[in-house]
């Protein structure tokens, strides 16, 4: 009998020990870590895709940052702690004290801390300070491609989301898919092997390889910044593209913003003027109408026009830019001296119906489809709202509003053999298992190869025999056209405020590069020939060196 009693007492003691231990664990939380849960479920966030230029140079990467937080209930002597933190975080003690609230469980104190700062604070071994790991975008080239890339901000749920540019357009591809982990863990946080262990790996965002070349982007930005300063312009854009595919090689508009500190800038800076701002193109529009008239066989390159004086249309009078008239001039000469009256003559030859047909064919009534967020379409009035003066002024690029990207896309179509191409900035989308190469897309044919060749010759002549002789690189054939468009303000044109532009290409025989330069309200001269054109040639000189183009 005593043996049974002994066994009973032994088991009783054993149970009491187990109960006591459970009591200590469950009631007094011994061993327990701060955020211990028996069944731990966690969303695994994917890493956002990176963005590279065409030479695989990184334009946007990710970096790890830390959010430092306080747990006020665990903090004992806040004054000493704040004094220590003040020196490291460079946040004054008063600000830290203002944030502190003893009633709260969790207070965020400093965001975007790097690894070094985090370890410095950790060395202090202060109870009640914690860190939350965060991923943030890193731009090795700072704001080199701000408008092109866009930035990553937060949506209303506090999740990362891309805004503007590539980040906005390809947000879904860049974001990836979150994973999931569910794990039964023991008291020391180790996974229990025989328990529930479920893990679905996150799918990281896809990387993007752009058509953009970092070096050309740098050249364009540097030259544009110098141009704005030299010509005292308010703003400006430079677009460089391959005219045969419309792959964008560089796209810069100034002023821009710092995508890393986007919240320090007003929203006006975020919009990319190259795709979101409309402007009246002025004389750079003339070659498009010339090409349309050639294609419709309404004019021939060796035709002549008698430039006698101004043309009256209703109550309006159309003059040449210098109010001088040369008499009998060729079609090429009309472009060389940028004759408005000559263009009205060509417009009349082309006819109203054809004029509208070609404006639509060039895509001025639709989006170009460029893969950047924020593109707006140009605006063409309904047919019944077109008056005779509108048909006349549109031939020299006034009375029509287009975006710079529409302008360069349409212009590229008349020099590349006649094909309107969709402009694009992403050439390859790379995921973990495959590469998706984006091919150039032809939208429609506008003119034939023969007429394209004629236009290229006319535009080369326009550069060589134009009204102004520029400091051109010697030995190279360059085609192009200047433009000076007055800015409409409250229904009237202000002659002192212009948008100066130049669009050109090189080599003239087989164009490899097309460049559009626009300057808004240049202060030194209102003319495109004296502001945008010299800037264009400055850029071209650098591109010749970069591409190692040989003189013709």
């Amino acid at each position: 009998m005593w043996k049974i009693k002994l066994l009973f007492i032994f088991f009783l003691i054993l149970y009491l020990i187990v109960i006591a231990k459970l009591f200590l664990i469950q009631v007094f939380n011994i061993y327990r870590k701060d955020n211990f849960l028996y069944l731990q479920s966690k969303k695994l966030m994917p890493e956002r895709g990176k963005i590279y230029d065409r030479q695989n140079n990184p334009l946007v990467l990710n970096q790890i940052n830390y959010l430092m937080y306080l747990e006020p209930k665990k903090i004992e002597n806040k004054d000493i702690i704040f004094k220590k933190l003040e020196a490291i975080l460079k946040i004054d003690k008063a600000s830290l004290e203002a944030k502190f609230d003893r009633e709260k469980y969790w207070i965020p104190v400093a965001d975007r801390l790097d690894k070094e700062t985090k370890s410095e604070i950790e060395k202090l071994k202060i109870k009640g300070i914690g860190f939350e790991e965060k991923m943030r975008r890193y731009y090795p080239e700072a704001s080199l491609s701000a408008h092109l890339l866009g930035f990553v901000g937060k949506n209303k749920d506090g999740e990362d989301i891309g805004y503007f540019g590539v980040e906005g357009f390809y947000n879904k591809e860049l974001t990836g898919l979150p994973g999931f982990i569910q794990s039964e863990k023991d008291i020391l946080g180790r996974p229990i092997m025989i328990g529930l262990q479920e893990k679905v790996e996150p799918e990281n965002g896809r990387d993007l390889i752009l058509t953009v070349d970092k070096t050309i982007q740098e050249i364009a930005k540097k030259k544009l910044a110098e141009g704005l300063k030299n010509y005292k312009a308010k703003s400006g854009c430079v677009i460089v593209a391959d005219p045969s595919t419309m792959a964008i090689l560089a796209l810069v508009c100034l002023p821009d913003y710092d995508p890393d500190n986007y919240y320090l800038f007003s929203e006006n800076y975020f919009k990319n003027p190259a795709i979101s701002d409309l402007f009246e193109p002025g004389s750079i529009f003339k070659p498009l109408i010339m090409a349309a008239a050639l294609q419709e066989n309404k004019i021939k390159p060796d035709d002549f026009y008698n430039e006698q004086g101004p043309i009256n249309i209703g109550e309006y009078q159309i003059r040449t830019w210098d109010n001088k008239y040369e008499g009998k001039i060729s079609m090429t000469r009309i472009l060389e001296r940028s004759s408005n009256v000559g263009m009205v003559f060509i417009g009349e030859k082309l006819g109203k119906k054809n004029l509208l047909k070609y404006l639509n064919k060039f895509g001025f009534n639709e989006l170009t489809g460029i893969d950047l967020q924020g593109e707006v379409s140009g605006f063409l009035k309904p047919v019944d709202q077109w008056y005779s003066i509108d048909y006349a002024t549109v031939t020299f690029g006034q009375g029509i509003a287009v975006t710079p990207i529409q302008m360069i896309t349409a212009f590229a179509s008349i020099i590349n053999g006649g094909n309107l191409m969709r402009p694009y900035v992403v050439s390859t989308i790379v995921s973990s298992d495959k590469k998706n190469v984006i091919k150039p897309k032809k939208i429609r044919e506008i003119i034939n190869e023969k007429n394209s060749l004629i236009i290229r010759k006319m535009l080369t002549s326009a550069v060589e025999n134009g009204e102004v002789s520029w400091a051109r690189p010697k030995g190279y054939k360059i085609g192009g056209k200047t433009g000076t468009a007055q800015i409409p303000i409250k229904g009237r044109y202000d002659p002192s405020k212009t948008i100066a532009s130049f669009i050109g290409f090189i080599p003239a025989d087989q164009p490899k590069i097309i460049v559009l330069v626009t300057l808004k309200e240049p202060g030194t001269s209102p003319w495109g020939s004296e502001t945008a054109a010299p800037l264009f040639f400055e850029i071209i000189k650098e591109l010749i060196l970069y591409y190692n183009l040989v003189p013709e």
Partner: protein
Amino acid sequence: MKINFKKIVGFLIFIFIASKICFFVLGIKLSEEIKVLDNKIKKVHQENIELEKEISFLDSYQYAASQAADLGFIKEAQPIYLENLKYALKN
């Protein structure tokens, strides 16, 4: 020969208990290893991100420009021409 069931059952129970303890200890050891490896992977991933950032910074135009400025390879370093050389020539 009489089979001693009690001894066989006792032996089996002993084997089960021993193997259970063995598996339990191995499980703990394995989960400990998983935890260590998880942390190592996380650390390596963090190091990769840090290194990628550092390499891209060293390869950037921003860094090149700052180095050029430090070393004096900037426009300000161009020669300054003396204009009134005639005085020097006279003397």
